């Protein structure tokens, strides 16, 4: 008698557990709540719009700190099984997160929106045909510069890097306190971008075998070029966006910021009195007549393997990154340049960024630039490379040793690290 009572109790419990779990998975009795980590400004506004329109899929947003901190926390949380459902991830960091088994493959969930992206853009989050995230915004490299000062000093806007050098010298002549730009050692993304533009492939993979090209000749020539600029005191190497840099930008002692399309919002934040004095033009090229540029910055959004509601999470990601409504919000609320083709085209109708209110063709120029981006393959240990690069280049600048050697040292560190972990590499 006792046994059957126990059996009944157990059976009832088991049954109710199944029923309850079935209920929660389907979300039929209540809304599904998803956790979303990002750092872009004003993301809460975007999330609020979604939450209003989707009462059964509610998204809870958390500012998890800037790009690097965010991915570090994501990694730690994933190791603990605690990762959020959805997270923003910078493009270079995505491969290392894949190796750490963080993102969920969403190829099937997003097959209906892949056409919204140019092939080169989608390649940022697709590996071997597996879509691991959706691009949110892109940062095609461009030159943001003080058009008023260049005009005043009669210096033509540089279209090639050789012209950039000439302009740099002219700036130094016109105002001994001013530099055309500062390119410090921690601008890893910038150097990766210009090296890519010169034809170097810092990582490439074929059939699972990697090749590391940080010390390719094209890359080393890039190093030589910028080392020459520093040696002739034509550019500065102090860190950017510090109080020091901001003060100088305010005073007109930095004439340009070679970066990407998201730069105007940043400059406006720290030098609001210079509004109206800046313009944007295509990034200098290594060979006159070329149009290709790399991306600097920009992020994608992934669904993590820890998510218990991947389908709903993918729905949100698709809305945020691949829909027209999402693109509108990205441009207007976050000052980001959307990754979708439609988004970029609709941006053309927007007024230019408030930093350059008179540059009416800003967004159509941007669309042209964006359509010519060179796809980049990032390796699985970008963080190691970036860390080594920053330290090596810093040392080279401080000691006056050749930048070539710094790049070669970084190559060695990256190759050794990948070999150590067990990757198949062609360089030895």
């Amino acid at each position, binding site marked *: 008698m006792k046994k059957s009572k126990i059996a009944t109790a157990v059976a009832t419990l088991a049954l109710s557990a199944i029923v309850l779990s079935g209920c929660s998975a389907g979300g039929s009795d209540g809304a599904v709540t998803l956790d979303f980590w990002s750092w872009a400004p004003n993301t809460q506004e975007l999330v609020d719009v979604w939450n209003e329109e989707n009462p059964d899929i509610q998204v809870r947003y958390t500012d998890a700190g800037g790009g690097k901190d965010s991915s570090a926390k994501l990694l730690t949380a994933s190791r603990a099984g605690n990762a959020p459902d959805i997270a923003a991830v910078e493009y270079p960091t995505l491969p290392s997160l894949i190796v750490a088994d963080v993102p969920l493959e969403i190829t099937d969930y997003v097959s209906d929106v892949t056409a919204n992206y140019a092939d080169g853009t989608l390649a940022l989050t697709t590996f071997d045909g597996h879509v691991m995230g959706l691009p949110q915004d892109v940062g095609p490299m461009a030159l943001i510069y003080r058009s008023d000062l260049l005009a005043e000093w009669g210096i033509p806007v540089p279209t090639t890097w050789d012209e950039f050098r000439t302009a740099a010298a002219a700036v130094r002549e016109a105002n001994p306190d001013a530099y055309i730009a500062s390119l410090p050692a921690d601008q890893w993304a910038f150097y990766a971008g210009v090296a890519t533009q010169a034809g170097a492939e810092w990582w490439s993979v074929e059939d699972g075998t990697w090749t590391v090209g940080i010390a390719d000749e094209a890359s080393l020539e890039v190093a030589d070029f910028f080392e020459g600029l520093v040696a002739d005191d034509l550019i500065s190497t102090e860190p950017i966006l510090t*109080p*020091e840099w901001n003060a100088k930008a305010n005073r007109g002692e930095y004439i340009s910021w070679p970066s990407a399309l998201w730069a105007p919002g940043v400059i406006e934040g720290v030098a609001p009195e210079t509004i109206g004095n800046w313009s944007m033009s295509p990034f200098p090229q290594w060979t006159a007549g070329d149009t290709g540029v790399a991306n600097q910055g920009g992020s994608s959004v992934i669904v993590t393997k820890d998510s218990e509601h991947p389908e709903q999470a993918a729905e949100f990601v698709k809305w945020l990154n691949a829909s027209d409504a999402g693109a509108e919000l990205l441009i207007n609320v976050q000052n980001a340049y959307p990754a979708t083709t439609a988004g970029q085209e609709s941006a053309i109708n927007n007024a230019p960024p408030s930093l350059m209110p008179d540059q009416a063709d800003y967004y159509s120029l941007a669309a042209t630039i964006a359509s010519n981006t060179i796809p980049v393959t990032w390796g699985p240990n970008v963080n190691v490379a970036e860390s080594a690069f920053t330290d090596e280049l810093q040392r080279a600048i401080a000691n006056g040793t050749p930048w070539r050697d710094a790049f070669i040292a970084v190559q060695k560190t990256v190759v050794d690290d990948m070999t150590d972990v067990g990757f198949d590499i062609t360089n030895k």
Partner: protein
Amino acid sequence: MTATPATTAATRPRSEATPARTEASRPRKRPRSRTRFAPYMFVGPAVVLFVLFMLLPIIYAAYISFTTYKLESGGIFGTQVQVFAGFKNYIAVFQDQALLTGFGNLALYSIIAVPLTLGLALLFALLLDTPGVRATRFAQTAIFIPYAVPGVIAALLWGFMYLPSTSPFSYITEALGWGTIPFLEQSGIYGSIGNIAIWGGVGFNMIIIYTSLRSIPAEIYEAASLDGANEAQIAWRIKVPLVVPALILTGIFSVIGALQLYSEPTTLKPMTDVISQTWVPLMTIYRNAFLTDDLPGAAALSVVLALGTVALSALVLWLSGRRNKGAQS
């Protein structure tokens, strides 16, 4: 527990003489077993918390330090798994050139920061204790206030005061025609970071030494000044030797704090290009743990650093024990 009326002073010796029989026959607890059990009750919570949040994590960190990540096939690029790695991480620690530089930076910094913090703390404490000095309350409070400012914020504030374009000090020197002060360049960086630590630490150490001074009986001074000693001599010959124990205490704290230097160089790092990612050992640990995803390496370095700190503190204690035979920790 209720009081037992039987345990009066008269009866206690007798009951202690025959513990077994009385414990068995009386249901109420005896004071002796009460005092045996009670201390564990008092230290219990602290011990539990210590085990859970200090001992276990250290053991876990040590365990991690003997593993590493290797690639296994499967997935798009393969996936990382944690495997046992023996002493690989520890060997890497001792072969790391950048780490050696980090310890060098730490040493240079400590030579500036530790003596100056203690020296200034001692000086201010002695000054506070000088007869005829005014505004002691204000000075005491003002000097202690930096302790209340978090390290991250302090470094940010001082960063602004160091950068040439926003620094009031460089503003003045420039106006005088001397150019800007190289706070955040290679020549000045150790002093600059040391300054932040000194600024934050003098107050706390000053208070420790000062209260030690205040408890010295006045008669000792009266005897000396009757003999014709002036304030400075009294301070040097009498007060300082008497506060040596407090100096040792603050010394050990300062050494431990110096070895764990982290937030000041990290906060200043974006503002200058002379601070690398591995400028001090703790930054290397942070980089390994959070930036380059080498948690086992970070764990190994932490273990080495902790052991080194123990050794150094033991050395300081031993040396001071030899100098001051009466000193107790």
